[in-house]
């Protein structure tokens, strides 16, 4: 939508947009260009000479079986976190969206975990699940030790990350449910549709766009925002069992100092985010076009 009435002047608007643009260039475009540059070059061990290596870093990356197991691990992790957080969020939203005594209290008590940092969620879960001291962990038997068992570590990381994310989905599902016209649900009730049938035939199809949107948001959250939780809980271990792609970029680039390989991973991740965000705008477009 174009505005008909505007203010005259060219210098003022450019000054107004300048700070945002400057930050975008310095902290987004420059690093992104650098990542691409580093991904296609190699520097010798002394940092004295740099040569162009083309797609070598990428071929090496895609030939690396460890990278693919990290991809697979990230997929399992993201899918589990998203599924658990979305199902619980939808469940709670469905039961809150009705005439229920104390429903505002329920709402407040289901919203606050939005404010919890993923890393701190992990700290609290460590405290509960620790095999020696945890209020839950110490009753889980002698085979419970997420410090040694990769599958248990993965399960715990998923729980801590999903726990924190339920509120977000709850808020969106509740908003979507409240937008459904009462008359529609009442008509269905008069036709004899109750409980699960009513949900399946009336509510679920209307929640579909919200579900698609939330799926992308949850996948992005699980892929990128959970670094702190994973790092605090397991450090990516045991033996790499919880090393997702972002953890790997950090480990290889910052700890391992493999700049070219880490840059190639960054570029691969950027492509992934672009794909996910484009998908999101396919579902919820309308806004970007001016």
């Amino acid at each position, binding site marked *: 939508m174009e505005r008909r009435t505007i203010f005259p002047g060219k210098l003022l608007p450019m000054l107004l947009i300048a700070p945002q643009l400057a930050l975008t260039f310095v902290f987004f475009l420059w690093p992104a260009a650098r990542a691409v540059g580093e991904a296609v070059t190699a520097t010798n061990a002394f940092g004295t000479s740099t040569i162009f290596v083309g797609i070598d870093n990428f071929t090496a990356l895609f030939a690396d079986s460890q990278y693919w197991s990290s991809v697979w691990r990230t997929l399992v992790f993201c899918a589990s976190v998203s599924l658990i957080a979305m199902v619980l969020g939808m469940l*709670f939203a469905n039961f809150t969206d009705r005439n*229920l005594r104390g429903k505002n209290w329920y709402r407040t008590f289901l919203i606050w975990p939005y404010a*919890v940092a993923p890393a701190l969620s992990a700290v609290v879960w*460590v405290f509960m699940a620790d095999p020696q001291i945890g209020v839950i962990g110490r009753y889980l038997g002698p085979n419970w030790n997420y410090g040694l068992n990769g599958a248990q570590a993965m399960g715990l990381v998923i729980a801590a990350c999903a726990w924190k994310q339920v509120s977000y989905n709850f808020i969106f599902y509740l908003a979507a449910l409240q937008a459904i016209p009462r008359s529609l649900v009442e008509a269905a009730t008069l036709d004899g549709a109750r409980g699960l049938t009513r949900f399946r035939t009336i509510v679920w199809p209307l929640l579909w766009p919200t579900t698609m949107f939330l799926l992308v948001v949850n996948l992005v959250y699980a892929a990128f925002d959970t670094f702190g939780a994973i790092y605090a809980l397991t450090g990516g271990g045991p033996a790499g069992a919880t090393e997702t792609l972002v953890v790997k970029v950090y480990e290889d680039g*910052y700890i391992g100092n493999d700049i070219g390989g880490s840059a190639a991973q960054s570029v691969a991740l950027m492509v992934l985010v672009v794909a996910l965000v484009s998908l999101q705008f396919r579902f919820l477009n309308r806004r970007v076009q001016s």
Partner: protein
Amino acid sequence: MNHHNNYLAHTVLIFGVLLFLLPIWVMVAGATQDAAAIARGDISLIPNIHGLGIFWHALFFKGVASAGYPVWHMLLVSFTMALGIAVGKIAISLTSAFAVVFFRFPFRRVMFWTIFLTLMLPVEVRIIPSFAVLSSLHLVNTYGGLTLPLIASATATLLFRQVFTAIPDELVEAARLDGAGPLTFLRDMVLPVSRANIAALFVILFVYGWNQYLWPLLVASTPAYSTIVLGIVQMISPDEMTPWNMIMATTTLALMPPIVVVILLQRAFVRGLTDVDK
């Protein structure tokens, strides 16, 4: 029928409330207990009233790795960082959306799309090259380094652009006839109209800033700039023997500010979140 349904609803919702509250309860109860008892695996779920002083002591607690910077200092760093990100991002998004909507100037579209592009590049993705850029600008271990890279973002600009586009042309016309310049119009008209959106964004961005982990981990390499989230994760690392009651008390203190902000501004926040992220 209806009654039966309500019982089910209450049961499910109470389950939900407990699912979130129990870990917090365990955390608070753990904080008030004797460190030695916890280490023996002897945690009681009933908070010890005599241990409540720990929350005060925790403010002055120094982890082994914190080189003399106590918890209150870390809270202060987190607060400064979160506030800086929230205020900074709102300010630059507001002005750039204002420029894009109410003016015509060369390369306007190109500039808008350049800003929009940043949606595609979360900081986690370009972490190593961003850090390299930051060190060449000498911003490592500064508040600028902690906040500036997280301030630039398209979401807030998109939101304000949408709000401003909905302001009727007639209002702009009237303001111009009254002889109001663009900056007067911004102050007297645009800001009041977007107050609710600003409040909502503030909550979202404050929480976002407070909860950062990966970025401070890189940028704050000296304890003087350690945030509280960073400090706590460091306390539970295997090479540091910190008493668990102290860790839980510190975690409680770290969780409070963003939770209080969310609960106090709940109404604006919920409406704003569903607007912003769509």
